[in-house]
């Protein structure tokens, strides 16, 4: 991992600087003993053996999947929700690189990193869920073009590669490989175009999966246009997760924000909030239109209708209005609150479509086994730890030193 420019420096010092945050090995190890790390270690220490258990004893032993609910938490949350929450990468990438809003450049790298880690976690979650993961490569060699899943598989594969390539910029910068970094910077525009292209296809295709199941998904959620709803909500998720992430990062990694002041972040947050309000409002009416199109208004009076109203009013209309109010009156806290509600709303929508309202007419409801939840939690924890590890070392949050 050494490089011409670094060779002059003593090896230990380079390693310490790059990996141990400038500390000695002893100091570094001591610095790891924090309450947060203890909890994370516990989660992972139980979770990794659970993943081994899943493969050693099978899906029957580790999940509550059944003949009537073959899709559970690992598909509904890890895959469906994980992918949509990682949509910030292409949303912000397009904003900065294509729409020329350079002021958002400060949050582009964290958004891309979150996207990349989110996709990797979703793919690992999928591999845990698949009954015969060793056959996954048949997807690429088989022309299964009648399947929406074929499209998703290809796009997720390509897009994860694009995210990885986009992330090589801070990575090469970190290693001091200036030439490679410069090459990747030149490719960034093309990569951003590809990221929008692949995201358009697979974010919508994740909804397209359900077009095949009108008898299964509740009519209030089913729509022949569900793929459009999924794409629009992916943009909402992209915007909202970036706001949530920026506000958390700004607190947790405060020393990292060298270039951008708190006032700058507030300004960006309000700008994002404005976009969020508009897209959420459009999404609200698209969803109304979907129900009209399905002639499903009669269902609104049922129990499922009440549940649908919770999603529509509490997690689509409310965050839209909060965003609008916050952005208009320059109240950053309101925008941040709205972003949290909006993210929860997207999670709720994906869980409804793939698990809750998906099983509405099934004899037995699906409730995940604790092992399913724990493995999901483990993957999430590993993702957060990886994010922290990278952010503490590579130029992600702070501006690149000129």
């Amino acid at each position, binding site marked *: 991992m050494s490089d011409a420019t670094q060779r002059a420096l003593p090896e230990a010092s380079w390693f310490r600087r790059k990996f141990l945050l400038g500390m000695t090995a002893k100091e570094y190890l001591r610095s790891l003993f924090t309450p947060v790390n203890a909890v994370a270690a516990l989660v992972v220490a139980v979770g990794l053996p659970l993943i081994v258990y899943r493969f050693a004893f099978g899906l*029957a032993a580790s999940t509550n999947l059944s003949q009537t609910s073959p899709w559970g938490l690992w598909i509904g949350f890890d895959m469906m929700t994980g992918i949509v929450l990682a949509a910030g990468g292409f949303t912000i990438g397009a904003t900065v690189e*294509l729409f020329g809003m*350079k002021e958002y450049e400060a949050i582009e790298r964290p958004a891309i990193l979150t996207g990349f880690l989110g996709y990797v976690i979703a793919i690992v979650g999928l591999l845990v869920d698949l009954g015969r993961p060793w056959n996954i490569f048949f997807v690429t060699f*088989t022309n299964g073009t009648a399947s929406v899943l074929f499209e998703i598989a290809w796009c997720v594969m390509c897009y994860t590669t694009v995210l990885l390539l986009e992330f090589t910029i801070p990575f090469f910068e970190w290693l001091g490989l200036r030439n490679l970094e410069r090459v990747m910077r030149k490719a960034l525009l093309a990569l951003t175009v590809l990221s929008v292209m692949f995201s358009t296809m697979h974010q919508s295709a994740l909804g397209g999966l359900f077009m095949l199941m009108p*008898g299964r998904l509740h009519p209030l959620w089913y729509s022949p246009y569900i793929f459009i709803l999924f794409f629009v909500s992916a943009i909402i998720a992209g915007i909202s997760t970036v706001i949530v992430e920026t506000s958390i990062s700004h607190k947790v990694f405060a020393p990292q924000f060298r270039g951008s002041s708190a006032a700058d972040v507030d300004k960006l947050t309000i700008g994002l909030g404005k976009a969020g309000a508009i897209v959420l409002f459009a999404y609200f009416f698209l969803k109304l239109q979907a129900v009209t199109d399905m002639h499903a208004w009669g269902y609104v009076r049922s129990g499922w209708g009440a549940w649908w109203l919770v999603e529509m009013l509490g997690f689509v209309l409310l965050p839209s209005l909060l965003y609008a109010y916050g952005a208009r009156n320059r109240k950053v806290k309101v925008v941040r609150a709205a972003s949290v509600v909006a993210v929860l709303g997207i999670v709720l929508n994906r869980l409804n479509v793939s698990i809750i309202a998906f099983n509405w007419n099934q004899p037995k409801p699906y409730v995940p086994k604790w092992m399913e939840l724990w493995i999901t939690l483990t993957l999430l924890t590993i993702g957060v730890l990886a994010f922290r590890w990278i952010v503490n070392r590579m130029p992600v949050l702070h501006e690149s030193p000129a």
Partner: protein
Amino acid sequence: MQGGFGHFTRRPFRLGGPIMKVNRREFLKVGMAAGSAAFIGLPARARAEADVAGAEESSVLVDTTLCIGCRACEAACSEANALPAPSPGEPVFDAQRTTSMDAFTVVNRFEKGADHSEVRYVKTQCMHCVAPACASACPNRALDKKRNGPVTYDAGRCMGCRYCMVACPFQIPKYSYNELAPRVRKCTFCAPRQARGLAPACATVCPSGALTFGKRAQLLDAANLRIYQNPNTYVHHVYGEREAGGTNWLYISDVPFEKLAMKVGVLETPYPDLVKGALGAPPFVMTLWPPLLMGLYAFSRQRSGEEERPSGTGEEKP
């Protein structure tokens, strides 16, 4: 008219075949019935074979009025597919059963009327759709529709995503979750036997004539003929003629199908057609997005004028 679906195209009608069970005489009667039905406007559904989806595919007609509930089909199925033998005896009828990973076909008992005097038996198995949702859902083509009718499964290609299970409008594919290399389990329509020119095991052993094996178009005509000749007995509907765009297993009954726990509300559209809109999008996205986005980029650069980006980003204007 049935829409075509990808590789499951319609084939020209040809008479005969090594495993045809409907004889020529019955076939002629069917033709006459169809003709007169069309003439006097009866709702008989017999149509020219050229219009029938999967006309040449092998099919089975189930006449539920003839089934005696002997479950010989279950036993034969278990033997043909190397499954555990079904539990013998009457008590199995006390509860409604579904197909499972160890039973590709099950026979259920239903009361015909309210007075418990008469019962009907119905055999359940994979319907072998002409345009199957499961096979269209499978990205690995592990589930595949054969030209002669069966929807088959190849575990060697399956990655175990279970999309087929949720896609099937009849909820037929089952999964062996307990295995370390789990498989999708469902009726194979005895594809290996059919390849040798034999009828499926269940249809071979049926002693009561409830199961008739033949070509789909001819069995549809035979079914319609029975309904036409006994209009007061049969429900005027061939279950599977239009359900899910047409299935290779066809049912006729003297009791409304919903009373026999047959799935009602299955769409008449071939299920793979439902996703055509979404699958039509990628070519447009791939051709239109890049120029559109580059146009936006050019526009945004134009607008920002001579404004220089911060140094070191490598994006300076030439």
